[in-house]
């Protein structure tokens, strides 16, 4: 019976420190947009920008500290697949919004 820890490439292992750092950063990055919206002190445009940037940074924090994605050779193919997927997502979401808003504009 082989019960030794498996050594896999790609998604590598974390440590207690990376998980706790990720947790604290995520808590802060969750608290910021909620506080912005619940207090309503900023203008709607500034609040939207705040939510968007906090969300984006938190996604990067999760990718780095929880999914252990970096530029090391072991994770390179995972990173490449992710970047390619982002390209498709931008085409899908951006293209849909563009076409639908244009249609909406012409129907008015």
């Amino acid at each position, binding site marked *: 019976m082989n019960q030794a*820890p498996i050594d*896999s490439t790609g998604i590598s292992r974390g440590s207690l420190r990376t998980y706790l750092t990720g947790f604290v950063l995520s808590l802060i990055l969750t608290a910021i947009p909620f506080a912005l*919206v619940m207090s309503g002190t900023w203008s709607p445009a500034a609040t939207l920008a705040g939510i*968007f940037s906090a969300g984006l940074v938190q996604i990067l924090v999760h990718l780095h500290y929880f999914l252990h994605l970096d530029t090391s050779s072991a994770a390179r193919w995972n990173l490449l697949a992710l970047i390619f997927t982002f390209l498709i*997502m931008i085409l899908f979401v951006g293209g849909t919004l563009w076409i639908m808003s244009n249609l909406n504009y012409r129907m008015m």
Partner: protein
Amino acid sequence: MTTDATTISTTYNEEVAHPDTVAMQTFGFWIYLMSDLIIFATLFATFAVFSRSYAGGPTGRELFDLPYLLGETLFLLCSSVTYGLVMLAVHSGKKKWVLIGIVVTFLLGLGFVSMEIHEFYGLVAAGHGPDRSAFLSSFFTLVGTHGTHVTFGLIWMAVMMGQVAVKGLTSPVQSRLMRLSMFWHFLDLIWIGIFSIVYLMGVV
């Protein structure tokens, strides 16, 4: 068919799987997650198009309860961290802590799903179901798809509890725990998009 045989077989052979098998399974699962990401991207695009199509019905500002949402978010975030601790216990071979960790993660995930079902039930009971407006249709589809993924993650976790208890931390079991870890962190990542774009931006 060799890959299938190493994955499914429960004979002694699976314990001496080829060292590259785990790496291939991990990468293959990552590709699956990327295809899942595209499903969510299409649902996000649909929601973005319909996000103001209220058809005279309620708006996000009237429907969404932010403190409740914060509770759901914290349940899912904490479960992501406890699953990270499960993986640390897996790497150091502490079977008891792996089981305790999975149980805690399962309960936190169950808390999230229960809160979401309660929220959906409240919305439908108040007449704000998916049939009310295009906004609500796309809302239920996007958030419901995520909730379904979390539910399947919980089923997977229950299966893994059994496997760890019965089989111990063998290589195939470790490999499955690793893929479940990717799946669970991925769902938390999607949730960041949902609470930011659907809920918070809907209330602003």
